[in-house]
């Protein structure tokens, strides 16, 4: 039976409730956003007792479906003040799904100081004091917790680091990868700080003794999963030894650099002279030189067939960090003007250890460099600054609260953000489509909120020329499709394949039908995505957001970006048309 686990941190009780009928078939982002919309007062303080953190695995998470081990985490964001859903790839959500737990809702706030750990297993859920783990680096905490709870074959762990304990707005929620590394983050939006405000340090999930996830229609499920698997196995980007497997997402460093859209030195330029030294190919070559082996990437989570997660090795051949994603590579690399992979790797490792979102943290360092705190390119100094955050010094408290706070503290007008969230690794002045996504996203500047999907696959009304689309309609459909994919539990990267291979997308819908017993078609993709977005937009409206928040920062309209020497010139009413056609 599907249940919701409600964890009240005021009374420190954990109780199971049946899944409400109104939430039938909802999971992943659809469910986290539904609960946040329905239960969290939109005007509440994100770090106060009324906010909640909601965890939900996707519809097919925990089944034999490929690349589907995503966990959605939702709440009101201390970074943006709006709704947030951030997701990560990890075995943690699979175990939750196998226990029949559709969602964990963490609410309330303890009156007394301290941190607690929640243990979830077939017998139930219990809270215990966790002060012993507070203040420690996650690379110490995770091995100790694995040792205590029976090892990584048995449990997966969600935790916050020092940044979350300090309630910093750049704090993410950490999960372990398959090797037990604390390296997979629901990073964006500061939900780690919300957990910190509730005193919840960690959630350990043990699914020993759980049953397989029941399938309402096994034939439909198997057919769907095979179609999706075939698409992933055949597409040049997602297949074994394809682009993601060989080079990881960091292959994008060179591509964005060629496109003139690689934000460099706090979004001053669109090309970075050191791009080739930090790109995916350089990571592959550097690892080969240092380990003597061609290292192909691994799966961050069970059942992923794409396997895009990389590692970086020290000169002596020992592992330094995992994973240097494109966004992290860019944030500490091009955006900070740093062209040294060892420095970037150390900054990445420190974020994993202190519990920080790499995008917000790198973007914040770049703003601070613009404000004169340090020199762009000085990797050693950047590493020192990251330790300031981890230690919670007064300077660290400023930096740990993100780019907007830091921009204010250092008098910087060039803060590339939307709704308080630092922009990720695509320059909107060079790539206008992503600028629209940043502007109107319910999440603040977020590349994943509209990463996917061709309009003709979605079967949207009217005929669109795919090479010359109506930008507003395209941006809207991107967001709907992403809202759907974030609900299935699939990693967004399946979009590369199912975008080009229509049967793969059909398969994704059929799998959901197989689990739920529904009869969804491709038309339901847009319907569900729309419903998710409507919930989120309604929450944000009640939180006080207006169309004026769906804008890019002023400097992008007046400062032109080399090499294209263009400004952001999309009219405001075109942005407003995205959701109000």
């Amino acid at each position: 039976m599907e249940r919701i686990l409600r964890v009240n941190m005021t009374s420190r009780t954990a109780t199971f409730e049946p899944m409400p009928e109104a939430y039938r078939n909802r999971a992943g982002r659809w469910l986290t956003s539904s609960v946040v919309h329905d239960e969290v007062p939109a005007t509440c303080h994100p770090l106060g007792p009324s906010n909640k953190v909601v965890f939900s695995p996707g519809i097919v998470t925990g089944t034999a479906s490929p690349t589907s081990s995503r966990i959605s985490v939702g709440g009101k964001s201390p970074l943006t003040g709006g709704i947030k859903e951030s997701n990560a790839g990890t075995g943690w959500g699979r175990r939750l799904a196998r226990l029949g737990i559709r969602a964990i809702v963490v609410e309330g706030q303890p009156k007394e100081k301290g941190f607690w750990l929640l243990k979830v297993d077939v017998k139930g859920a219990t809270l215990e004091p966790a002060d012993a783990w507070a203040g420690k680096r996650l690379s110490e905490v995770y091995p100790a917790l694995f040792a205590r709870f029976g090892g990584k074959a048995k449990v997966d762990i969600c935790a916050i680091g020092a940044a979350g304990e300090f309630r910093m707005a750049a704090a993410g929620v950490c999960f372990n990868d398959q090797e037990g590394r604390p390296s997979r983050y629901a990073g964006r939006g500061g939900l780690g700080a919300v957990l910190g405000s509730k005193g919840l340090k960690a959630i350990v999930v043990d699914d020993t003794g759980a049953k397989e996830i029941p399938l309402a229609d096994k034939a439909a499920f198997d057919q769907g999963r095979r179609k999706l698997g075939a698409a992933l196995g055949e597409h040049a980007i997602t297949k074994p030894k394809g682009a993601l497997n060989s080079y990881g997402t960091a292959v994008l460093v060179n591509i964005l650099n060629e496109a003139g859209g690689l934000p460099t030195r706090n979004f001053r330029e669109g090309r970075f002279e050191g791009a080739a030294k930090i790109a995916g190919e350089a990571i592959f070559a550097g690892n080969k030189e240092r380990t003597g082996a061609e290292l192909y990437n691994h799966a961050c989570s069970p059942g992923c067939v794409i396997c895009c997660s990389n590692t970086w090795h020290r000169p002596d051949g020992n592992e330094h960090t995992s994973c240097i994603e494109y966004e992290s590579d860019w944030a500490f690399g091009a955006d900070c003007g740093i062209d040294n992979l060892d420095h970037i790797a150390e900054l990445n490792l420190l974020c994993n250890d202190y519990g920080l979102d790499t995008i917000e943290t790198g973007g914040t360092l770049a703003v601070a460099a613009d404000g004169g705190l340090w020199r762009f390119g000085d990797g050693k100094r950047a590493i020192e600054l990251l330790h300031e955050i981890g230690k919670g010094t007064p300077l660290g408290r400023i930096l740990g609260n993100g780019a907007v706070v830091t921009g204010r503290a250092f008098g910087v007008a060039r803060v590339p953000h939307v709704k308080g969230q630092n922009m990720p690794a695509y320059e909107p002045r060079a790539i206008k489509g992503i600028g629209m996504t940043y502007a109107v996203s319910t999440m603040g500047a977020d590349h994943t909120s509209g990463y996917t999907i061709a309009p003709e696959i979605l079967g949207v009304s009217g005929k669109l020329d795919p090479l010359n689309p109506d930008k507003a309609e395209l941006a809207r459909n991107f967001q709907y499709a992403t809202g759907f994919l974030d609900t299935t539990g699939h990693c967004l990267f399946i979009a590369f394949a199912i975008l080009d291979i229509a049967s793969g997308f059909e398969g994704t819908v059929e799998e959901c039908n197989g689990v739920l017993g529904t009869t969804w078609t491709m038309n339901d993709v847009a319907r569900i995505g729309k419903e998710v977005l409507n919930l989120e937009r309604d929450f944000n409206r009640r939180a006080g957001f207006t169309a004026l928040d769906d804008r890019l920062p002023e400097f992008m309209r007046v400062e032109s970006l080399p090499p294209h020497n263009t400004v952001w010139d999309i009219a405001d009413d075109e942005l407003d048309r995205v959701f109000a056609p």
Partner: protein
Amino acid sequence: MIDVHLYGKLRRFASNGSPDSDSVVSMPHREGDTVGSVVARLGIPEADLGANLFVDGHYADRRTPVADGARLGLFPDDMQLLYKWYFRPKEEGS
């Protein structure tokens, strides 16, 4: 002259090809050059070429004209990670 920046397995067509630095071929421009004609002159097999092709930072395809002084960026088929629908290709002939 045209500068062609090559990536991934296409780097082998540059004499200075290395995975962690720029691999660039400088070649004379010819009247009427397109991405396709430049690719053919370099001897790059059609099948190796992906959809992430750039002329002066603009998303391009094989028919995109190449002017004297242009910078081309060519990525192979196994590296086309940039989401193509974000771009409007340059008008043909412009």
